[in-house]
């Protein structure tokens, strides 16, 4: 018990418990609400997208917050994962009839594909710094979008058929187009559930938090804070950079599968620059390097435009204004003062507690 207490008192422990706590408590509350019937179909429909965006935000936080490199193409990895996941679930429809297992396998495959994409992009790109990296990742996101837009992939008894730009194959009887060029994917069997989303969040949290708090994570942060110093003590900077980037890409891919399997149709155009920016907004608003902040920001900002529907055409305007207000608050001296006050109070408490101990 004491061990847990002292763990919770440390900053690292507090953050970890907070992350898992938020997710598990939210899950219990929502499940109770669903069981009690006190939840609108609007919120119900948002649950899986929220889970997907939370995983996206956590994974991007690894690149932007922990590694300190600005990536504007995160939706590209989501796209790779989404389409890899769809292809996997379609191919395995007969082999694995159990839906949750099929989804899990698809996520692993999607994660692998996204990781491969991460290596391909990461190796040349991570030699760049700052704005240059941002621009190249942005270009990567667009490239992925355009490739998927001209990709034709079909499945029949003979196996998978693939062609680029024009459909050069004919499917046999009972064959099915999986990715149909610009038309994208139609008629997906929905596999994602809220529970699977929460499980993915928990797995991501477990992995990312342990990664951050490990020797590797400290090395990554050392690279972020001062590359030259890190180099000088023998840390292989490009190795650690690539590692963090690829892990981040892999989880984005899994989030992509979760997202895609929640809708009956997906097109490459969905995973464009705007989606990348959206996820970046979650991360920045939640605080760079702050994992539980990302979870809350992603949830809040996905819910917000839907809850503002009552305002009709003004909602996007209000949404944007609220975003600006939140960003300003995040950077304001007012927030700094609030944080200082809290720190003071905690110190006082600690002093008092310390005094008591000495007295006793």
């Amino acid at each position: 018990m004491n061990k847990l207490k002292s763990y919770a008192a440390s900053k690292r422990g507090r953050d970890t418990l907070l992350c898992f706590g938020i997710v598990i408590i939210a899950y219990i509350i929502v499940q109770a609400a669903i069981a009690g019937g006190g939840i609108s179909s609007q919120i119900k429909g948002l649950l899986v997208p929220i889970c997907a965006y939370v995983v996206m935000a956590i994974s991007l936080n690894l690149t932007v917050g922990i590694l300190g490199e600005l990536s504007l193409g995160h939706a590209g990895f989501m796209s790779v994962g989404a389409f890899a996941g769809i292809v996997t679930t379609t191919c395995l429809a007969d082999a694995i009839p159990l839906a949750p297992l099929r989804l899990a396998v698809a996520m692993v495959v999607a994660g692998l594909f996204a990781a491969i994409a991460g290596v391909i992009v990461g190796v040349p790109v991570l030699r760049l710094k700052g704005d240059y990296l941002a621009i190249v990742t942005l270009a990567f996101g667009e490239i992925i979008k355009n490739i998927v837009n001209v990709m034709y992939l079909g499945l029949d008894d003979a196996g998978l058929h693939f062609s680029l730009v024009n459909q050069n194959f004919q499917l046999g009887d009972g064959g099915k187009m999986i990715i149909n060029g610009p038309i994208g994917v139609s008629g997906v069997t929905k596999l994602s559930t809220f529970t699977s989303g929460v499980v993915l969040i928990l797995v991501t949290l477990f992995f990312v938090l342990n990664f951050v708090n490990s020797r590797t994570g400290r090395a990554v942060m050392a690279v972020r804070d001062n590359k030259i110093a890190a180099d000088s003590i023998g840390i292989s900077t490009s190795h650690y950079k690539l590692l963090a980037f690829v892990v981040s890409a892999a989880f984005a891919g899994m989030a992509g599968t979760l997202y895609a399997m929640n809708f009956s149709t997906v097109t490459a155009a969905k995973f464009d620059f705007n989606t990348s920016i959206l996820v970046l907004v979650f991360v920045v608003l939640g605080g760079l390097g702050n994992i539980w902040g990302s979870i809350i920001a992603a949830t809040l900002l996905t819910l917000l435009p839907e809850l503002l529907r009552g305002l009709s055409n003004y909602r996007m305007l209000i949404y944007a204004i609220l975003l600006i207000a939140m960003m300003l608050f995040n950077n304001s001296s007012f927030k700094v003062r609030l944080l200082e006050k809290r720190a003071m109070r905690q110190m006082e408490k600690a002093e008092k507690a310390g005094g008591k101990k000495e007295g006793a």
Partner: protein
Amino acid sequence: MKKTLSMLLAGAMLATALTGCGGSASSSSDSQNSGSDSTASGTAFKIGGTGPLTGAAAIYGNACKNGAQIAVDEINAEGGDIQFELNYQDDEHDAEKAVNAYNTLKDWGMQLSLGSVTSKPCEATAAENYSDRIFALTPSASTVAVTADKDNVFQMCFVDPNQGTASAQYIAEQKLGTKVAIIWKNDDVYSTGIHDKFVEEAKTKGLQVVSDNTFTDASANDFSVQLNDAKSKGADLVFLPMYYQPASLILTQANSMGYKPKFFGVDGMDGILTMEGFDPKLAEGVMLLTPFNADATDEKTVSFVKKYKEQFGETPNQFAADAYDCVYAYKQALENAGATPDMSAEDLCDKMIEQFTSMTFDGLTGEGMTWDETGAVSKSPKGMVIENGAYVGM
């Protein structure tokens, strides 16, 4: 880095805010009452639809919303047994947002759905319609996947492939040309769908496709290669299955190189005459297949166009007319079925499936429309030719 980042994000947000503004500005007068023009709730059928009311595709979403609104107002003013309450929700032309909008409408108590305005979002909402057993009649989502494998999703517009088939038949029957060139956009669902069926049908009708060239979003600013190819192969008719923006450029370039074949378009060509910066003279003699013509002189169209102009200050396009027809088709089906507003969406769904597969409907966009079990409409397209800056039936 933090500073760059905050500047960047501020910029991105500003852009979002501006697009939002643009959308709401164009939807003009009715932005306040978009929720519902309710005549006492509970006695009216609740119709819901989603469409892009903001963003790049807002022109289509708002047209549908306005068209449907006019029909609902007319019906409610008549004061008959059937009264409607209309609720249009913004989906930003995004499948994810469309599902959110659909769920919002479900919470509102939607009994009949107008699906979504654009194809991809409609595919997503149609799947929900199917699993929730809420009947849907989409004014304008035209891909086959919208209605595929769903018994309760119907379309008011032509399916893309049908337009291709109909165009080829029309060209062959009217003997408009024998050597056909096609220029189409191969990264676009609409254009690809029409092109494929056109080529298929052209073969059986004995039309000769001599030149078949593509462009994409990125290369939609120069068509000299495609036009030269068509010219050198002696095409006497150029088929343009695309929206009016690239078509306007093709007409301009063909004119400047002195190439004067017949041009034949589809319903996406509607809008070319009012396009800013385009000389309507260049469109003289262009033929197109479209179900709706705002210059038609029949009573229904005249009254609709007049009302639309009064309320929204612009000439209605095909989308508005389709949405208007949707509401009237619902009215007719509900009357035939003897449905009452207190029925559940599920009961209405069964009745509507029965009605729509058996009834015949006359509307702005066609006479004697019927629907088959797949949900596709069958109506005869009207061939139009542009003469003196106006559509004339041919």
